[in-house]
């Protein structure tokens, strides 16, 4: 257990073992909060903090948790972190907390958080668990930001709320794609990302 490859722990979840595109976890929220880039960024940050801290705490408790109730204990730990993040955001970053609204609370249901505690934190020391949590949050966040980039650009013609597509395009007959704002297109975009990743990384392809 002592010979943990930190580089592997940190880098694998970003690309090779990305929680969204390879493990296919956390799809629900990546459809919901990717309409605008700003929301996606703050959501990504909140998830990074929650996955990191929950894995850390769960790992500290790992030898004391009764096996039969471990899922419920994990759930308590995760919800504690989520509520803390929500409360702190409300007190010190009110406008951000308003943009994210209900989705902060919904981090509790994000499969990545529980998945990483089950798969990694319960069998590893606190520090590697913290890093694993942070890295997985970042892997999730990366996909979120990429999807949000295309959805906001093609769906609203803006990025971070600033107009990117010039007015002259609209005058010439260009129109924002309303379909891309709706969740199905997010799923299709996600599928395209999975496709690209698997064509680069041949070992992920199923026979």
């Amino acid at each position, binding site marked *: 257990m002592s010979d943990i490859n930190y580089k592997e722990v940190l880098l694998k979840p970003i690309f090779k073992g990305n929680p969204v595109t390879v493990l296919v976890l956390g799809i629900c929220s990546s459809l*919901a*909060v990717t*309409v*605008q880039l700003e*929301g996606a960024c703050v959501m990504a940050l909140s998830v990074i903090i929650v996955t990191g801290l929950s894995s850390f705490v769960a790992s500290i408790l790992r*030898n*004391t*948790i*009764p*096996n*039969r*109730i471990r899922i*419920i*204990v994990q759930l*308590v730990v995760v919800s*504690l972190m989520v*509520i*803390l993040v929500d*409360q*702190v955001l*409300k*007190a*010190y970053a*009110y406008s951000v907390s*308003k*943009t994210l*609204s*209900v989705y902060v609370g919904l981090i509790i249901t994000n499969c990545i958080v529980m998945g990483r505690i089950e798969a990694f934190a319960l069998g590893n020391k606190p520090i590697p668990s913290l890093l694993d949590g942070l890295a997985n949050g970042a892997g999730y966040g990366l996909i979120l930001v990429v999807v949000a980039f295309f959805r*906001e650009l093609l*769906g*609203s013609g803006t990025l971070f709320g600033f107009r990117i597509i010039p007015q002259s395009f609209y005058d010439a007959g260009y129109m924002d794609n*309303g379909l891309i*704002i*709706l969740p199905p297109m997010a799923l299709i975009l996600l599928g395209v990302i999975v496709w690209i990743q698997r064509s680069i990384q041949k070992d992920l392809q199923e026979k």
Partner: protein
Amino acid sequence: MNTNGNTYTVIYSTVLVVLVAAILAFVAMSLQDKQNENVKLETISKLLGAASQVDTTFTIEEDADVLGLYADNVVAAFFVDGNGEKVQDMNTGKEDKNKIEVTTTSDLKAQNDKFKKLEEGQSELLSELRLPVYIFDIKGHKVTVIPCYGAGLWGPIWGYLALDEDGKTIDGAIFDHKGETPGLGSKIADKPFYGKFHGKTFNMTGEDMFTVAKITAITEPEHSVDAISGATITSQALGKSINLWAKYYKPYLVKAAAASQANTVSAPEEMTEAADSTFAGNTAAATNVNVEE
């Protein structure tokens, strides 16, 4: 140690839950004041935001002292009941800006619940309503700001409407929501949407005082705004809540408009000015009502 025994499991879960509850209670209590302060500041800046739309030269900076601005520009703030009678004053912060009183969304919700009972026919509640009214003087324009509140698609939506002295012309509007769909329903909080309210009027005689509807379904353009495409439920809910609130404010608005017309000499001048900024349809509608009066 046997971590799988029944006794251990029960004790472990009890201790864990109590511990977590204690942490959360502590955090919630220590952050409460700060959070309430944020909500109050937010409300005040929304009120100012709605009122300031009457004059485009009145701008609120990002980092402005909202409390000071409010105290400087507010003329009066009070509650009225459902019969249009003034019942209670609010602290406007003229002496101490930290004592400003405003009604936050939780107060609005309480009034909204009373509306529901009133709609069911409990008309004795009419005198128990406590509806906030804020009167601002923005660079010489006197505007009355009233709130609205209702249920959106996912959670509450609310907003503030700034009305002209005639009690029916909308000088400005601002909306907010708890958790409408980002990019769709959430657009009610964006300027391109609320900007459309400027210059519209309440229909003081018809069944619906104001509607938010699909543009093809609009029959009275001066009393309606176009809904947001893809956010039908949020748009309709907003229209409904404006309607409901305006209905219970109507007695007050009518009285206030009559009073201001009776005792202001300079009023006609200001009214022409206001009419100029609106488009032709509104002016026509406004004149019609004047004739009726």
